[in-house]
């Protein structure tokens, strides 16, 4: 058994690592669910869990009712068709000129008017494909009374209407939806709820205009901010530096004390230096120089590396001294996002909207796999350090003898030297009597 505090720390670290993995896995699985669902057929919305509309089985394409339309429905349908056609005519005039941002995203409409008021004759019958004419005035009173329960589906229709419009839009812009509806309506029944897959119709989708507008504004603002950061005005920078200096002198401090963060950052840098130097050394030692000049360069490099290591050690001594003279600081409850050894810290510029462009599935997979691998390696290194700090003393100081000690040794070896993957074998070599 391991001593109490050693156990505590080891278990805590490993459990933390396990929890972090589990959280990541959960996020991945959630994302996978969504992606899988997107790639399946996009179902008619009648299957949705939301409460009311009992009737409308709206979906992406022309949703037919589950049963043949009643005469009442057909009549309302006709009203609606007329309203749509009129709206389409009106629209044609308007949208020729301008922006599509009057386009009814049901969202923006709702923010303009209190929900429930519809500025557009809602489809009574599920057999309607969404019309685009939602900024036409409501033409039929009776239509509106049944709005609330059907509001839900109708909103969907509108968004779908966008898509259908575009789908048919290229060829037959305005009259498209209206006409189609008319033709479809009588033959609504035979038409199955057309679910479609992203594969077939994906390229026909269009985002709602309100969203597009806000999103493009968002993108351009971020781009402005990012370019402003990179070309920071020298006046402001100079003013800031001056201010910082003034503060330093006003506070009477001589040399800024090393903060905990800076020590951490330096330590990270030294780690990085160590590994880079080591890698370089390996390269040099394994390269077979072909001529004397290369040999000479190899020699110089090795000596140069040696000097650099010396410098690092010197810096380390300074750090050690600085740490020793300051009392141990408690860590703030929340640190800024913990920077990894590979990444720097300090006053980093904030996020900038750079795109990451890839060209094939293979490439994306490689990228993602490598990123995970790097993260995993960093975690492994951290755990290795913790294990070394906790286990090695235990192994060397333990009072155990015999089999329990051997178990400990085997376990320690496996954990420390093989990452827990393999275990060594110990054979008792009794002298033959």
């Amino acid at each position, binding site marked *: 058994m391991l001593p*109490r505090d050693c156990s505590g720390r080891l278990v805590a670290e490993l459990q933390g690592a*396990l929890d972090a993995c589990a959280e*990541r896995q959960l996020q991945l699985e959630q994302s*996978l669910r969504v992606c899988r669902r997107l790639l399946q057929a996009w179902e008619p919305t009648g299957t949705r869990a939301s409460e009311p509309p009992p009737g409308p089985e709206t979906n992406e394409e022309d949703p037919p009712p589950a049963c043949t339309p009643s005469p009442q429905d057909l009549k309302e349908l006709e009203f609606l068709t007329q309203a749509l056609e009129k709206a389409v005519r009106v629209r044609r005039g308007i949208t020729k000129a301008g922006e599509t941002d009057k386009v009814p995203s049901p969202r*923006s409409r709702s923010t303009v008017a209190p929900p429930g008021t519809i500025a557009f004759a809602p489809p009574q019958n599920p057999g309607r494909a969404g019309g685009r004419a939602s900024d036409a005035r409501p033409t039929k009173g009776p239509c509106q009374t049944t709005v609330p329960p059907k509001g839900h589906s109708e909103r969907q229709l509108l968004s779908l209407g966008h898509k259908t419009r575009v789908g048919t839009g290229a060829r037959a812009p305005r009259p498209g939806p209206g006409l189609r509806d008319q033709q479809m309506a009588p033959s609504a029944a035979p038409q199955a709820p057309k679910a479609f897959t992203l594969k077939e119709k994906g390229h026909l989708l269009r985002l709602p205009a309100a969203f597009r507008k806000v999103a493009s504004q968002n993108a351009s603002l971020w781009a402005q901010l990012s370019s402003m950061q990179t070309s920071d005005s020298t006046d402001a920078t100079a003013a800031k530096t001056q201010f910082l200096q003034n503060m330093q002198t006003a506070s009477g401090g001589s040399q800024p004390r090393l903060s905990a963060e800076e020590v951490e950052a330096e330590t990270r840098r030294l780690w990085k230096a160590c590994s880079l130097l080591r890698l*370089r050394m390996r390269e040099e030692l394994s390269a077979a120089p072909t001529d004397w000049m290369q040999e000479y360069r190899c020699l110089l490099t090795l000596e140069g590396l040696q000097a650099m290591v010396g410098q690092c050690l010197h810096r380390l001594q300074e750090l050690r001294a600085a740490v020793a003279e300051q009392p141990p600081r408690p860590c703030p409850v929340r640190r800024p996002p913990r920077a990894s050894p590979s990444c720097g810290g300090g006053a980093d*510029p904030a996020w900038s909207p750079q795109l*990451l462009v890839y060209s094939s599935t293979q490439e994306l997979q490689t990228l993602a796999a490598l*990123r995970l691998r790097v993260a995993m390696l960093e975690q492994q290194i951290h755990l290795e350090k913790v294990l070394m700090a906790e286990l090695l003393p235990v192994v060397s100081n333990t009072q155990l003898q015999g089999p329990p000690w051997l178990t400990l040794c085997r376990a320690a070896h496996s954990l420390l*030297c093989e990452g827990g993957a393999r275990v060594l074998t110990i054979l008792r070599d009794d002298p033959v009597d």
Partner: protein
Amino acid sequence: SLPSGPSPEIFRRAKFDRPEATPALWQLLFRVLAPLPLDNPLASLAPEVQARLVKSALRSQGYPRLALAQLPEDGSQGSRELLLALSWLLARGPVPEQMLAQTRVPLGDEMTVCQCEALASPGPPAPQVRAEDPVDVRYVQWLMGKLRFRWRQLVSSQQEQCTLLSKIHLYTSGCHGDQSLGHLSVAEAEMLRDPEGGQQVRGFWSGNPQNLDLAYLKGLHFSCTPGMGPRTFWKDLWLVCEQPGLLLGDWSLLSPLRALLRTLECENRRLEAVLTWRRTELVFWQWMDTVLDTCAPRAPAAASQGTFLPGIPEHRGGELELVAWELRALQEELQEAAECRRAAWEAKAGGCGRGPEWSAVRRASREAVEKELGALQRCWEQDRDPAQPHGPHRLVRREDGAAGDWDLRAAEVIRTLRSQEACLEAVLHQLQGQCRQGLARLAGALPGLIWIPPLGR
């Protein structure tokens, strides 16, 4: 309910160290230094605790003025000092931009290239360490095995996700209004598929339901008109620092799409506020100089640290020792290798003559090597690779892989990651090697046993 932000009046009063300005500034500092999602219990801490956290955070970042540590935590005085602390933070780094970045709404499928939010150990283990019962080392082995299994699972789930993502991007290419993007992201496609969120998995937008911002309404009220003078700064700054994440009472009635639009609009307002701030910030710094002037220059107080949170001291000392160990080991190896080579070289080239052309060649070699090593040194001294800024990037699929000047290409990122991988593997093997030696020494002390290492990789 959300408290309203500090008015410009507060800041003016703080300049003259008026006590009534103090609580608001403590809060503002807290918001800046501990940017937490508001559903975190830490957000509802008592003011005294918040003040202590602020002090501690500032100290750990190296705030130079000792006066701050000596301020009472009840908010009764010290507003000028707090104002100085705030400006110090603003001067050191792009605080408003960082805060914006933290609460950004990700519209695309994003991947983080740098490891800042990596799975590496989540922060200090201190809060997690409880007085555990002593465990058997085999339990530790078991935990390790479990961890390795979870990693393997992650890898395979990740691969699957990449495939699906790639397909979605492929199938929706040509859809997006923005030409540079070209295709929809998962989030955008999902929004089209299910705008009302009837079937939606809650929290899809990485916490978006919580991102509704009461300040959105307030923000509309603060008209962000650019102006000269400190007045408008505070409005702009507060708008940015305002914590998103408050739930509107009736947000559940808003469809996720509408909530998203609202949030985006709010973010746009904040972006505009920061841009305004940046354009006119020079005036702010001039004003702050006057604030500094009104401070009586203090004699450096004794290095009394004041109160700080009871906590477990960092294990920094241990980390430094490990690095020291590593570096010393490396130094020994290098020394050996270099001396060996030097001897061989002298023996070989010693007789080759020392003509002028030799020394010219030798000098050229020296310069070349110095340059290479200088570049190597910059690799670790530079805190970051300027080509790869922090933070997640939106994934965009392009068949030809064409990327603009500002965009990252996957191939390059892969190259960088591979070299990082090599680096890290070297470190890990080194550490494991140390352990092997250490354990071998211990084992060697025992006669009568044969240690058979497992088959190597």
